[in-house]
């Protein structure tokens, strides 16, 4: 293998690994978000079968749409 072919190959490997790392970093969730919700979060909020008012519906929407 020619010397320039080797260099090109090494550069390609390095670039591909960098691209992979960046993509991986973008997909890893991080940090904490503290939310002051405008209602008391009752135990019934945690069961969709019991949702009978607007508060829990808004709460579920927040939890299920990233």
């Amino acid at each position, binding site marked *: 293998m020619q010397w320039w072919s080797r260099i090109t190959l090494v550069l390609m490997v390095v670039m591909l690994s960098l691209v992979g790392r960046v993509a991986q970093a973008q997909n890893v969730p991080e940090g904490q*978000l503290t939310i002051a919700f405008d209602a008391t979060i009752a135990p019934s909020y*945690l069961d969709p079968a019991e*949702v009978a008012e607007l508060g829990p*519906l808004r709460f579920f929407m927040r939890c299920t749409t990233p």
Partner: protein
Amino acid sequence: MIKPLPGNNMAPCLAESWTESADGLVYEFKLREGLKFHNGDPFTAEDVKFTFERYKGTSAKLLHERVKAVEIVEPYRVRFVLHTPWPDFLTFYGSLATGAGWIVPKKYLEQVGDDGFKQRPIGLGPYRFVSGTPGIELTLEANAQYWRKSPSIQRLVFKGVPERPTRLAMLKTGEADIGYLMIGDEALAIKSDPKLRLAQVISAATWWLEFPEQWNDKSPWHDRRVRLAASLALDKKAINEAERLGLSRLAIQKQFSAASACSSQNRMSISRYMAVAVTRCSRASRRLPVLTWSLPTLR
């Protein structure tokens, strides 16, 4: 099953597609394959049927009365058969108006029961339950297996804070990153604080005034002109400015959509009707009852 997402008011979710029969009696959902609940149990049509049978939230009686049968066609295909055509059916499975479309895990619920489920709920969403203190706080963490979009925040902590001034104080001290429903004076305080940002949120709910006595022919509200006069008397733009800093959208008044086109002469005669109605009520020492209602709607 189906839910509003940006750009699509009825976007595929747990159901990747659905059909409605020509006679409006059958709705069939093709479920997304390969989804797993937070405990690793697979999501199937059994869970959809179980969720329907277990549902007891908003308008559960109506839903159960209208649906004749839920049939599991295949592990990932479920069919709802109605007694009669019912255009509102997809309100239950394609909107935020009820909790019927949030599917719960049959196997897990049969193991832990209703109370066990509330203590340690699992679902199919982007965040899984970690811990919770009823009425106080709830901690969730990102579900790496979520099918649609990887969450960008690892941990969510929800704190139940019904008092608006307390939410504002939490924002100012850094105890909370986001405070919901910041309106009125607190919204003004946020707007004038360079460290905080007031974000406009068009809520999935519409608020309106209801005249519950309009069906009683002895009530002043029975007269449509009185209701129209009351509607005209409200300065909705000013209320929006005062309460919401002008950030809410004023809805079209369905019943009185032509009201804005009223001539000033008509407005005066309408005002006279209102004055007569109010005088009548004053003499009878009673109030004109009005209720405010809200209903989730598609946006």
